[in-house]
């Protein structure tokens, strides 16, 4: 008779067992911040469809101190989300070959972050000009 009795360990609380997993959970959960901001914008679009008064009401609501604070928190979450995704970009996309050599992971992450920052600033500049 076999004396085997393999013991299967529980996965309960797995994400607390390693700092790498904690960081993973934080980066995944910051997606909720991005989703929350999408909802804010969606409400804006709906209010716009409801006419000028509704739209102006939404604009005023956006300018309240509480809303500004919310924006800052959501922005921080979204920035961290962007950063943490680009950090794992080198393992999530096919290798980029430059001059016959594989691009270094740091260079790939750095380039992606620079492009994201430039795109963010360009968008900000554009919206700023429209607003003025």
């Amino acid at each position, binding site marked *: 008779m076999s004396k085997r009795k393999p013991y299967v360990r529980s996965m309960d609380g797995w994400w607390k067992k*390693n700092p790498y997993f904690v960081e993973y959970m934080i980066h*995944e959960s910051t997606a909720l911040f991005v989703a929350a901001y999408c909802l804010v914008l969606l409400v804006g679009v709906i209010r716009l469809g409801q006419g000028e008064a509704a739209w102006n009401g939404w604009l005023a609501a956006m300018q309240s101190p509480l809303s500004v604070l919310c924006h800052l928190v959501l922005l921080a979450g979204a920035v961290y989300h962007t950063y943490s995704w680009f950090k794992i970009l080198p393992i999530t996309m096919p290798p980029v070959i430059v001059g016959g050599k594989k691009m270094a992971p740091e260079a790939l992450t750095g380039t992606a972050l620079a492009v994201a920052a430039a795109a963010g600033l360009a968008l900000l500049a554009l919206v700023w000009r429209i607003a003025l």
Partner: protein
Amino acid sequence: MSENHKIIEIEVLRYNPESDEEPHLEVYKVPFTDDMSVLQGAQYIKDNFDGSLTFRWSCRMAICGSCGMMINGIPKLSCETFLRDYYPNRIRIEALAHFPIEKDLVVDLSGFIEKLEAIQPYIIPKEPKTLAEGEYLQTPKEFNAYIQFTSCINCTLCYAACPQFGLNPDFIGPAAMALLHRYNMDSRDGASASRMELVASEEGVYNCSAVGYCSEVCPKHVDPASAVNINKANAAKDYFLRFLSPKGGSK
């Protein structure tokens, strides 16, 4: 061993399937020298305190892949991890996470072996050639496309680093997927269509949520996470291609 050796406490997760209901920790005080690996620490315990302590090893030089353990919660090869780097703190060694414990530090790898078989880890030539027709030639560029994925030593540290494998033991997992990718990327091979069925299956790449820790712990820089993630894109491409051509992509 010299007289002025230091003593480190090694805490070992012990499990004897014949007498234990569940694993428990035991602490041993092990004298060590600066050149002693964690594996040698375990060997010292086996030789001097308890001969029944069970663990796997062979090469002692980070090439056979059999000595993997959780060392303070991190999957590592115990033969290339040194006691001096933990002293004066206590060090805890446990069987590789996410695998069933067979005994003490030995895990049940049968599921992993089955996965290795399932990916058809050999070249299935596009067009068979006779010996007289000569060898299959390959350019350096074609060689570079897969060489990194040949370095795997089957140590399974990447599985111990993968929570998705822990949650679903059927997930084909990082190392097997890296090996699958190695053959699919080989210009001499012609069987990627049949391997892609496994890639896109219930056990395939979509179990991966891009935690990325597997590549972090890999002692051979195989980067299994990239093999898994490249194949998410490949499986998606395959899926859409079959709408365009009756022959394109696999089922």
